[in-house]
Protein backbone atom coordinates (compact mmCIF):
# COMPACT_ATOMS: atom_id res chain seq x y z
CA UNK A 1 0.00 0.00 0.00
CA UNK A 2 1.55 3.26 -1.00
CA UNK A 3 0.57 5.49 1.87
CA UNK A 4 -0.33 9.10 1.19
CA UNK A 5 1.48 10.23 4.24
CA UNK A 6 4.85 11.71 3.31
CA UNK A 7 6.28 10.75 6.63
CA UNK A 8 5.88 7.07 5.68
CA UNK A 9 8.28 7.39 2.78
CA UNK A 10 11.21 6.47 4.99
CA UNK A 11 9.53 3.23 6.05
CA UNK A 12 8.49 2.47 2.47
CA UNK A 13 12.08 2.91 1.30
CA UNK A 14 13.37 0.61 4.02
CA UNK A 15 10.88 -2.12 3.17
CA UNK A 16 11.57 -1.67 -0.55
CA UNK A 17 15.26 -2.36 0.11
CA UNK A 18 14.37 -5.47 2.07
CA UNK A 19 12.10 -6.67 -0.72
CA UNK A 20 14.85 -6.20 -3.32
CA UNK A 21 17.24 -8.30 -1.25
CA UNK A 22 14.68 -11.02 -0.54
CA UNK A 23 13.77 -11.38 -4.20
CA UNK A 24 17.30 -12.47 -4.94
CA UNK A 25 17.33 -14.87 -1.99
CA UNK A 26 14.02 -16.61 -2.63
CA UNK A 27 14.37 -20.35 -3.37
CA UNK A 28 12.72 -21.51 -6.60
CA UNK A 29 9.07 -22.51 -6.66
CA UNK A 30 9.66 -26.11 -7.78
CA UNK A 31 12.47 -26.56 -5.33
CA UNK A 32 10.16 -25.65 -2.47
CA UNK A 33 7.30 -27.75 -3.80
CA UNK A 34 9.35 -30.90 -4.29
CA UNK A 35 11.81 -30.59 -1.41
CA UNK A 36 12.25 -33.43 1.00
CA UNK A 37 10.66 -32.39 4.27
CA UNK A 38 13.32 -32.20 6.97
CA UNK A 39 13.36 -35.07 9.43
CA UNK A 40 12.64 -33.57 12.74
CA UNK A 41 14.68 -35.23 15.43
CA UNK A 42 13.21 -34.82 18.82
CA UNK A 43 15.60 -36.33 21.37
CA UNK A 44 14.53 -33.77 23.94
CA UNK A 45 10.90 -34.35 23.14
CA UNK A 46 11.15 -38.12 23.54
CA UNK A 47 13.12 -37.82 26.76
CA UNK A 48 10.73 -35.28 28.18
CA UNK A 49 7.74 -37.43 27.23
CA UNK A 50 9.23 -40.51 28.93
CA UNK A 51 10.03 -38.50 32.04
CA UNK A 52 6.50 -37.09 32.25
CA UNK A 53 4.98 -40.54 31.75
CA UNK A 54 7.14 -42.02 34.52
CA UNK A 55 6.23 -39.16 36.87
CA UNK A 56 2.54 -39.66 36.14
CA UNK A 57 2.79 -43.40 36.86
CA UNK A 58 4.56 -42.80 40.18
CA UNK A 59 1.91 -40.24 41.15
CA UNK A 60 -0.89 -42.70 40.37
CA UNK A 61 0.75 -45.49 42.40
CA UNK A 62 1.29 -43.20 45.41
CA UNK A 63 -2.28 -41.89 45.35
CA UNK A 64 -3.76 -45.38 45.04
CA UNK A 65 -1.60 -46.75 47.86
CA UNK A 66 -2.66 -43.97 50.18
CA UNK A 67 -6.31 -44.42 49.33
CA UNK A 68 -6.05 -48.16 49.96
CA UNK A 69 -4.43 -47.65 53.36
CA UNK A 70 -7.11 -45.23 54.42
CA UNK A 71 -9.82 -47.71 53.45
CA UNK A 72 -8.23 -50.42 55.62
CA UNK A 73 -7.71 -48.25 58.68
CA UNK A 74 -9.60 -49.55 61.83
CA UNK A 75 -11.88 -46.66 62.42
CA UNK A 76 -15.24 -47.38 64.04
CA UNK A 77 -17.83 -45.09 65.45
CA UNK A 78 -20.13 -46.25 68.21
CA UNK A 79 -23.35 -44.31 68.46
CA UNK A 80 -23.42 -44.43 72.22
CA UNK A 81 -20.12 -42.67 72.51
CA UNK A 82 -21.21 -39.70 70.53
CA UNK A 83 -22.63 -36.92 72.63
CA UNK A 84 -23.42 -33.59 71.13
CA UNK A 85 -23.17 -30.37 73.16
CA UNK A 86 -26.95 -29.96 73.12
CA UNK A 87 -27.79 -33.53 74.14
CA UNK A 88 -28.29 -32.45 77.77
CA UNK A 89 -31.56 -30.86 76.65
CA UNK A 90 -32.89 -34.38 76.06
CA UNK A 91 -32.07 -35.52 79.59
CA UNK A 92 -35.12 -36.02 81.82
CA UNK A 93 -35.47 -36.42 85.52
CA UNK A 94 -35.30 -40.07 86.69
CA UNK A 95 -33.72 -41.28 83.49
CA UNK A 96 -31.60 -43.76 85.44
CA UNK A 97 -34.74 -45.24 87.12
CA UNK A 98 -36.42 -45.73 83.78
CA UNK A 99 -33.53 -47.87 82.54
CA UNK A 100 -34.33 -50.56 85.19
CA UNK A 101 -37.08 -53.08 84.62
CA UNK A 102 -39.61 -53.56 87.49
CA UNK A 103 -40.35 -57.14 88.59
CA UNK A 104 -43.08 -58.66 90.79
CA UNK A 105 -41.99 -59.00 94.40
CA UNK A 106 -39.02 -56.81 93.91
CA UNK A 107 -40.63 -53.45 94.42
CA UNK A 108 -37.85 -52.57 96.78
CA UNK A 109 -35.54 -52.37 93.89
CA UNK A 110 -37.96 -50.30 91.95
CA UNK A 111 -39.05 -47.98 94.77
CA UNK A 112 -36.12 -48.07 97.18
CA UNK A 113 -37.15 -44.87 98.96
CA UNK A 114 -40.66 -45.96 100.03
CA UNK A 115 -41.21 -46.44 103.77
CA UNK A 116 -40.92 -50.14 104.62
CA UNK A 117 -38.61 -50.96 101.82
CA UNK A 118 -35.57 -53.01 102.59
CA UNK A 119 -32.84 -50.80 103.93
CA UNK A 120 -35.23 -47.90 104.56
CA UNK A 121 -34.76 -46.32 107.95
CA UNK A 122 -38.53 -46.25 108.70
Amino acid sequence: MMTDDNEDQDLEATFRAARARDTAWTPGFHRVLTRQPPTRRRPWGVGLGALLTAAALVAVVVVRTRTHRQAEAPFTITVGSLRMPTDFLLDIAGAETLRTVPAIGRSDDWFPNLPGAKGHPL
Partner: protein
Amino acid sequence: MDRGNLEELLEQVHTPGFAWAVRCCRGDRTDAEDVLQQSYLKVLDGRARFEGRSSFRTWLFGVIRRTALEQGRRSWTQALKLGAWWREQDGDQASPADHVAAGDLAGRLEAALRQLSRRQAEVMHLVFYQDLTIQEAADVVGLPVGTARTHYERGKARLRTILAGMGITR
Protein backbone atom coordinates in the same frame (compact mmCIF):
# COMPACT_ATOMS: atom_id res chain seq x y z
CA MET B 1 -9.51 -25.39 -11.15
CA ASP B 2 -7.09 -28.20 -12.05
CA ARG B 3 -3.68 -28.82 -10.53
CA GLY B 4 -1.83 -27.19 -13.43
CA ASN B 5 -3.74 -23.93 -13.05
CA LEU B 6 -3.24 -23.96 -9.31
CA GLU B 7 0.50 -24.51 -9.68
CA GLU B 8 0.65 -21.61 -12.12
CA LEU B 9 -1.16 -19.33 -9.66
CA LEU B 10 1.06 -20.44 -6.81
CA GLU B 11 4.18 -19.82 -8.84
CA GLN B 12 3.02 -16.29 -9.65
CA VAL B 13 2.85 -15.39 -5.97
CA HIS B 14 5.77 -17.56 -4.87
CA THR B 15 8.22 -14.75 -4.12
CA PRO B 16 5.90 -12.65 -1.93
CA GLY B 17 4.56 -15.86 -0.46
CA PHE B 18 8.02 -16.92 0.64
CA ALA B 19 8.68 -13.50 2.18
CA TRP B 20 5.39 -13.77 4.10
CA ALA B 21 6.26 -17.31 5.24
CA VAL B 22 9.60 -16.03 6.55
CA ARG B 23 7.74 -13.33 8.48
CA CYS B 24 5.28 -15.90 9.89
CA CYS B 25 8.26 -18.00 11.02
CA ARG B 26 9.87 -15.02 12.75
CA GLY B 27 12.69 -14.81 10.23
CA ASP B 28 13.57 -18.52 10.05
CA ARG B 29 14.04 -19.33 6.36
CA THR B 30 14.26 -23.10 6.83
CA ASP B 31 10.98 -23.22 8.72
CA ALA B 32 9.54 -20.87 6.10
CA GLU B 33 10.37 -23.30 3.27
CA ASP B 34 8.71 -26.09 5.23
CA VAL B 35 5.60 -24.02 5.90
CA LEU B 36 5.39 -22.87 2.31
CA GLN B 37 5.67 -26.42 1.00
CA GLN B 38 2.94 -27.61 3.34
CA SER B 39 0.75 -24.71 2.28
CA TYR B 40 1.25 -25.51 -1.40
CA LEU B 41 0.40 -29.17 -0.78
CA LYS B 42 -2.76 -28.16 1.07
CA VAL B 43 -3.84 -26.07 -1.91
CA LEU B 44 -2.95 -28.71 -4.50
CA ASP B 45 -4.53 -31.57 -2.52
CA GLY B 46 -7.74 -29.59 -2.04
CA ARG B 47 -7.41 -29.44 1.75
CA ALA B 48 -7.45 -25.67 1.33
CA ARG B 49 -9.88 -24.52 -1.32
CA PHE B 50 -9.92 -21.06 -2.91
CA GLU B 51 -13.50 -19.84 -3.21
CA GLY B 52 -12.86 -16.42 -4.70
CA ARG B 53 -14.04 -14.33 -1.77
CA SER B 54 -10.76 -12.40 -1.85
CA SER B 55 -7.74 -12.19 -4.12
CA PHE B 56 -5.80 -15.43 -4.53
CA ARG B 57 -2.73 -13.88 -2.93
CA THR B 58 -4.62 -12.66 0.15
CA TRP B 59 -6.25 -16.07 0.55
CA LEU B 60 -2.93 -17.88 0.15
CA PHE B 61 -1.32 -15.64 2.75
CA GLY B 62 -4.03 -16.71 5.17
CA VAL B 63 -3.30 -20.38 4.42
CA ILE B 64 0.43 -19.80 4.97
CA ARG B 65 -0.19 -18.03 8.26
CA ARG B 66 -2.45 -20.79 9.59
CA THR B 67 0.05 -23.44 8.51
CA ALA B 68 2.86 -21.61 10.29
CA LEU B 69 0.79 -21.39 13.46
CA GLU B 70 -0.07 -25.11 13.28
CA GLN B 71 3.55 -26.01 12.78
CA GLY B 72 4.59 -23.76 15.63
CA ARG B 73 2.17 -25.50 17.96
CA ARG B 74 3.33 -28.94 16.88
CA SER B 75 6.99 -28.24 16.99
CA TRP B 76 8.88 -29.29 20.08
CA THR B 77 11.63 -27.01 19.00
CA GLN B 78 9.47 -24.12 20.11
CA ALA B 79 10.24 -25.11 23.67
CA LEU B 80 13.92 -24.95 22.91
CA LYS B 81 13.40 -21.49 21.48
CA LEU B 82 11.73 -20.33 24.67
CA GLY B 83 14.76 -18.39 25.73
CA ALA B 84 14.80 -16.40 22.53
CA TRP B 85 11.07 -15.83 22.77
CA TRP B 86 11.43 -14.59 26.34
CA ARG B 87 14.10 -12.12 25.35
CA GLU B 88 11.82 -10.83 22.61
CA GLN B 89 8.88 -10.46 24.97
CA ASP B 90 11.11 -8.76 27.47
CA GLY B 91 11.88 -6.07 24.93
CA ASP B 92 15.54 -6.96 24.83
CA GLN B 93 17.22 -4.83 22.20
CA ALA B 94 19.33 -6.47 19.55
CA SER B 95 22.94 -5.66 20.23
CA PRO B 96 24.87 -3.33 17.93
CA ALA B 97 27.03 -6.32 17.03
CA ASP B 98 23.94 -8.07 15.72
CA HIS B 99 23.23 -5.13 13.48
CA VAL B 100 26.74 -5.05 12.17
CA ALA B 101 26.54 -8.78 11.53
CA ALA B 102 23.32 -8.27 9.62
CA GLY B 103 25.39 -5.98 7.49
CA ASP B 104 22.63 -4.28 5.53
CA LEU B 105 19.45 -2.34 5.72
CA ALA B 106 17.22 -5.37 5.25
CA GLY B 107 18.96 -7.26 8.01
CA ARG B 108 18.49 -4.39 10.39
CA LEU B 109 14.85 -4.08 9.38
CA GLU B 110 14.40 -7.76 10.21
CA ALA B 111 16.03 -7.17 13.61
CA ALA B 112 13.70 -4.22 14.19
CA LEU B 113 10.59 -6.18 13.22
CA ARG B 114 11.48 -8.85 15.74
CA GLN B 115 11.13 -6.28 18.46
CA LEU B 116 7.51 -5.64 17.57
CA SER B 117 4.63 -7.82 18.70
CA ARG B 118 3.71 -10.60 16.28
CA ARG B 119 0.58 -8.82 15.15
CA GLN B 120 2.31 -5.49 14.66
CA ALA B 121 5.11 -7.11 12.67
CA GLU B 122 2.59 -8.96 10.53
CA VAL B 123 0.57 -5.85 9.73
CA MET B 124 3.74 -3.83 9.04
CA HIS B 125 4.97 -6.50 6.65
CA LEU B 126 1.67 -6.88 4.85
CA VAL B 127 1.14 -3.15 4.38
CA PHE B 128 4.65 -1.90 3.67
CA TYR B 129 6.34 -4.95 2.18
CA GLN B 130 3.45 -6.63 0.38
CA ASP B 131 1.62 -3.38 -0.49
CA LEU B 132 -1.70 -4.66 0.85
CA THR B 133 -4.36 -2.33 2.16
CA ILE B 134 -5.14 -2.39 5.87
CA GLN B 135 -8.43 -4.11 5.04
CA GLU B 136 -6.59 -6.86 3.13
CA ALA B 137 -4.05 -7.19 5.93
CA ALA B 138 -6.91 -7.54 8.41
CA ASP B 139 -8.40 -10.33 6.27
CA VAL B 140 -5.09 -12.19 6.18
CA VAL B 141 -4.49 -12.10 9.93
CA GLY B 142 -8.17 -12.56 10.77
CA LEU B 143 -8.72 -9.30 12.63
CA PRO B 144 -11.41 -6.61 12.45
CA VAL B 145 -10.14 -3.76 10.31
CA GLY B 146 -10.25 -1.35 13.27
CA THR B 147 -7.97 -3.59 15.30
CA ALA B 148 -5.63 -4.01 12.35
CA ARG B 149 -5.50 -0.24 11.98
CA THR B 150 -4.53 0.09 15.64
CA HIS B 151 -1.71 -2.43 15.15
CA TYR B 152 -0.68 -0.52 12.04
CA GLU B 153 -0.47 2.85 13.80
CA ARG B 154 1.26 1.55 16.90
CA GLY B 155 3.59 -0.69 14.94
CA LYS B 156 4.54 2.16 12.65
CA ALA B 157 5.38 4.47 15.53
CA ARG B 158 7.39 1.79 17.34
CA LEU B 159 9.20 0.68 14.20
CA ARG B 160 10.15 4.24 13.36
CA THR B 161 11.53 4.73 16.86
CA ILE B 162 13.56 1.52 16.65
CA LEU B 163 14.89 2.30 13.19
CA ALA B 164 15.77 5.83 14.28
CA GLY B 165 17.74 4.30 17.15
CA MET B 166 19.64 2.29 14.55
CA GLY B 167 20.29 5.44 12.55
CA ILE B 168 18.16 4.31 9.62
CA THR B 169 15.26 6.75 9.66
CA ARG B 170 14.69 10.19 11.09
